[in-house]
């Protein structure tokens, strides 16, 4: 019979350790989740003790544990408002909870996607529905670059034409 975690009283306590603070020894037994939440973290402590760690280790993006997080960091950990997944949980499970996670964790995704795919930008198929709008936006991007170049090289006639084109595309988008 395994010991239940005294924090939540639900999950089995899988972490057992002895803390020595100012010469005072205390023993602690916690489950993985509560230990994370309490910010109980020790270097080398969470290496390879759970299946999910192993998985994220395989995927090679367990950035959280290598950064040695502290309590303050744990609290500022982004959490997806839609499905409740935290970045910490994502990095352990290696799965997103919903499509909004991508927006929530966007700042942290680039290095991860680059490591897996060597790229961060989709080049493939686009759903028919999004296609029209997306094409306009990509065209706009290109036109703006051209505009900047023509202004720089003082080709004002061309710049004026480009400005008109940009304006008409912007109108299409706002329709």
């Amino acid at each position, binding site marked *: 019979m395994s010991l239940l975690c005294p924090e939540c009283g639900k999950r089995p306590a899988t972490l057992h350790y002895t803390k020595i603070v100012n010469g005072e020894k205390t023993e602690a037994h916690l489950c993985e989740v509560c230990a994370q939440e309490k910010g109980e973290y020790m270097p080398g402590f969470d290496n390879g003790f759970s299946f999910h760690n192993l998985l994220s280790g395989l995927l090679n993006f367990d950035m959280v544990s290598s950064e040695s997080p502290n309590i303050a960091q744990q609290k500022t950990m982004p959490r997806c408002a839609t499905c409740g997944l935290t970045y910490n949980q994502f990095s352990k499970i290696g799965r997103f909870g919903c499509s909004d996670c991508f927006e929530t964790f966007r700042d942290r995704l680039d290095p991860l996607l680059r490591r897996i795919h060597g790229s961060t930008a989709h080049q493939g198929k686009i759903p028919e529905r999004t296609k029209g709008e997306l094409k306009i*936006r990509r065209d706009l991007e290109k036109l703006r670059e051209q505009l900047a170049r023509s202004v720089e090289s003082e080709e004002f006639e061309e710049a004026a034409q480009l400005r008109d084109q940009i304006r008409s595309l912007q109108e299409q988008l706002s329709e």
Partner: protein
Amino acid sequence: MSLNHFLENAMSEWMRVKGADSDVIFSSRVRIARNLAHIPFPMLSTASQSEEVIHLIEEALTKDDIPEILENAELIQMADLTDLQKRVLVEKHLISPHLAEESTSGAVLFSQDESVSIMVNEEDHIRIQCLFPGFQLEKAWKLASQIDDWLEKHVSFAFDEQCGYLTSCPTNVGTGIRASVMIHLPALALTQQLNRFIPAITQVGLAVRGIYGEGSEALGNLYQVSNQVTLGQSEEEIINKLQGVVRQMIDHEKQARERLLGMSPIQLEDRVTRSFGILAHARIIDSKEAMKRLSDVRLGIDLDLLTGVPSSVMNELMVLIQPGFLQQYAGEKLGAEERDIRRAELIRERLGMERD
């Protein structure tokens, strides 16, 4: 006879030997992962949200513009199947082990010829799989894409300009495509050239693994070669790259076969006929040995060293001798030893059928 009847029902289109380069490539598969916008991925969705996903797919199936290949297709709920039935579907490569074992609200639909299967509430809401015999990656991709286009008219997919199609696992993000071939490499294995090949293939972003067997072991010299990267390249680029590398593997395998035949014809013939003899007469055989012998026999057929045995024997038997199939055929649960006896019996019967 019962076996004949069973074979008819048990055979999927992809197990037949046809299509280009079918002497080396057994099958080509493309699967694409899609998720519905505004519903959490299956891992975190509630029971009612999972039902909603199934409901949306069922509704799409009632539309008039349904692709011809999916007409009359019905969603089968995983909960309505026995463990054995699920196992048989996994062994036929029609559903994933994940859908069979882990999904609580999973469902699947097949086209009549079983070349298309759409898994619902697997790791992602929707996984469209197209599986064809031989080297037909492009055809598989076109069909998968066509089904994707149709579905997209009726449901709204989770898509992001930057990341592409959003998937539960970051390794599928972007195109959501996994294209693969099942390739038979007996001559490269015999001449021990595979160790040289596999690292090179991994370096260009493709993965090679044994289809049957665990770890580095590849039973029956059967390998799966697939793309790893799904983001930053178009589907066509991904398919082309895989095709290019596989084309080279086919050429090297064929060269190795010719060389083997030229250098040691009698040894090769002995290996082939000896294996055939064992398959045709053994009373007890485990799956490891059966796969090894089947691989030899198939190589013999492809090199005209054996006649009167159709080349589809290996493609069929490698599926039929799996534990799930053996038990379904027997109509009862079987222990490992009983399975070895049944397996030998089934192989003898199948090979005997051709001689009559």
